């Protein structure tokens, strides 16, 4: 069924059933709640700073129209306003300056004639436009390209290492019987109960003495062994029939080959889930990178955004733009991997 018929599907055939009213209003409400803030964020990120501090706020981003006017020998870009003159006439004039509540305006066609008008009588002439310099400036001037690179580096490598190490642990804990297996599993899951603030200081000493302080690997390595990941993958691997491993053993496969060629491909849906979790955690991680990283060139995006805000007394337009930029990769990864989970792997070889 196509999108249009899906979105307008109703229970009642010709008239609207009460359930239709309820469903649509509930769905619409949910849509506004979920998407509203994200849409607002994105639209606001395209507004200039002046527009951001405007009240009442506008929904869409506007760019003020300007015109070049020669005044007293000097060429200037002056903003255009639609002015209601005392005579009742409405003219489009360029503002020279504003003092208090009186605005001095000139006619662009006739720059020598000035008008003095109360600011209430003028409305800015503007059209919908995107202030794309909100995005380009931080990337060029403020090292945000470097922050972006650092975040991508940390996220990609941390995710890869997480997937490999967690799956190996899960494989051992699910497919091998050994004394103390349950004990190990309990300890691994038990670490979930320890809040990060408790271990931050000792972890810092460890990282410092190993010499990983102030390096991206110091951000990546302590966080790769996740108990959630081990547990998730272990539970999934338990559903892989043991007979597959036995058939592989009869087929001359070494234990490594069983892991790499049989179990890991079959665990792909759970690995995709863990990858999504890992990407989101690592990308949004703030506290640990803040502690480990001292040099500005190494900052990840989140840390960079934070210091950015402190240093330059909250330039909202840059923060908004960079926040949107930092959301995009996560959304892309999620959209890409979600398809992978839902289609799953075809069929099964075991009844």
């Amino acid at each position, binding site marked *: 069924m196509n999108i249009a018929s899906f979105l307008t599907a109703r229970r009642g055939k010709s008239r609207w059933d009460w359930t239709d009213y309820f469903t649509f209003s509930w769905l619409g409400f949910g849509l506004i709640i979920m998407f509203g803030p994200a849409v607002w964020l994105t639209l606001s990120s395209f507004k200039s700073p002046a527009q951001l501090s405007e009240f009442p706020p506008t929904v869409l981003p506007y760019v003020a129209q300007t015109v070049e006017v020669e005044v007293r020998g000097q060429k200037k870009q002056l903003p255009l306003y639609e002015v209601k003159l005392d005579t009742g006439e409405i003219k489009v004039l360029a503002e020279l300056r504003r003092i208090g509540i009186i605005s001095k305006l000139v006619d662009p066609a006739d720059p020598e004639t000035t008008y003095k008008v109360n600011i209430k009588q003028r409305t800015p002439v503007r059209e919908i436009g995107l202030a794309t310099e909100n995005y380009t400036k931080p990337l060029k001037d403020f090292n945000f390209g470097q922050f972006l690179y650092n975040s991508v580096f940390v996220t990609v490598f941390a995710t890869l290492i997480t997937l490999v190490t967690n799956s190996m642990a899960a494989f051992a804990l699910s497919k091998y019987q050994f004394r103390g297996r349950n004990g190990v599993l309990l300890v691994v899951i038990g670490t979930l109960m320890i809040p990060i603030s408790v271990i931050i200081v000792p972890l810092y000493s460890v990282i410092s003495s190993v010499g990983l302080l102030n390096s991206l690997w110091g951000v990546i390595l302590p966080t790769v062994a996740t108990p959630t990941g081990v547990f998730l993958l272990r539970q999934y691997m338990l559903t892989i029939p043991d007979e597959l491993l036995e058939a592989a053993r*009869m*087929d001359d496969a070494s234990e490594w080959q069983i892991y790499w060629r*049989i179990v890991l491909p079959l665990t792909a849906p759970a690995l995709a889930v863990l990858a999504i979790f890992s990407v989101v955690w690592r990308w949004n991680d703030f506290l640990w990178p803040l502690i480990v990283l001292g040099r500005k060139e190494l900052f990840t995006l989140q840390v960079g955004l934070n210091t950015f805000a402190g240093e330059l007394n909250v330039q909202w337009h840059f923060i908004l733009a960079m926040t949107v930029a930092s959301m995009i990769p996560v959304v892309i990864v999620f959209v890409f991997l979600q398809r992978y989970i839902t289609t799953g792997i*075809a*069929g099964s*070889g*075991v*009844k």
Partner: protein
Amino acid sequence: MGTIRLQNLHKSFDDVTILKDINLDIKDGEFVVFVGPSGCGKSTLLRQISGLDKPSSGNIVIDEKDVTEISAAERGLAMVFQSYALYPHMSVRQNLAFGLENKKMPKAEIDRRIADVAQMLEIEPLLKRRPGQLSGGQRQRVAIGRAIVREPTAFLLDEPLSNLDAELRVSMRAELVALHDRLKSTMIYVTHDQVEAMTMADRIVVMRDGEIIQVATPMELFDQPVNLFVAKFIGAPNMNFLNLAQAAAILAGQQPPVGTVTVGIRPQHLAIADSGLQVTAKIVESLGTETVLHSELDSSTKVLVTFPCHLQIQKGEQLTLNANISDMHFFNAEGLRLEPSIAYLKEQAS
């Protein structure tokens, strides 16, 4: 080439003994079937032979080489699992090639073997598909194919037909026997279905509670079961057992061997006669080609009779049944078979 010998095999897990003192000699090219009720240890024994499990004590000798300490892959055997255990994420071709690639076989050799097997089992059109896209019978053939490409010393089959529907089972039975004739390899087959055992085996190993009860050819098992258990297990419907007093009517004055406590008679060997057992018909099953009659001798003894034709019998009808003494089986107080003495047989012959 494919001889397997089991010497004094024991397997126990914690305090539970699963296999007790198993001794068995399997000749090269033999089709041996392990049969027995659920939980008798036949699958466990198969896994010991395959190398997937280690025995608690005892030896396994393949082709005069002690392989008890050798891992599964190096024993040169191939196993077909009950649930086929095909690798779901690989195509049929990759499933067949997996074991050969692990042995670092040259690609040309792998391709040749796969082509041969695909032709033999008629799975050529399926080579690019995944197991999930195959039917049960096709998957089973791929599982067998995976075993054949390894060119093993012996094949181990763990209830391979139990997941198929009845009709497919009959045709696959014939195919497996034909395959055995063609490959001439030793095959060890585990099943709980005595019909499969009877139709496919060169020799049957009847097991119960971790012990081997009898090893014999199908007809030997049918004609000369070594004890009550084997007598009851082999043959469908089950053999009828009567005590001496009840059997007096059909023995008609002839003396059974000394020590007889139970007399066994198969349903196929009873016939309607003028004198003999007086039974009351309870349930009549008409199968078209034969009729199975469930009758009662007295309130506690049931007698089953199979007639090779269609008979109209009323429920509650009184019938008289008799049988030849040569068709009867005699068991002593311990349930062991008693052979009539030579003198007795001579007397009967005359």
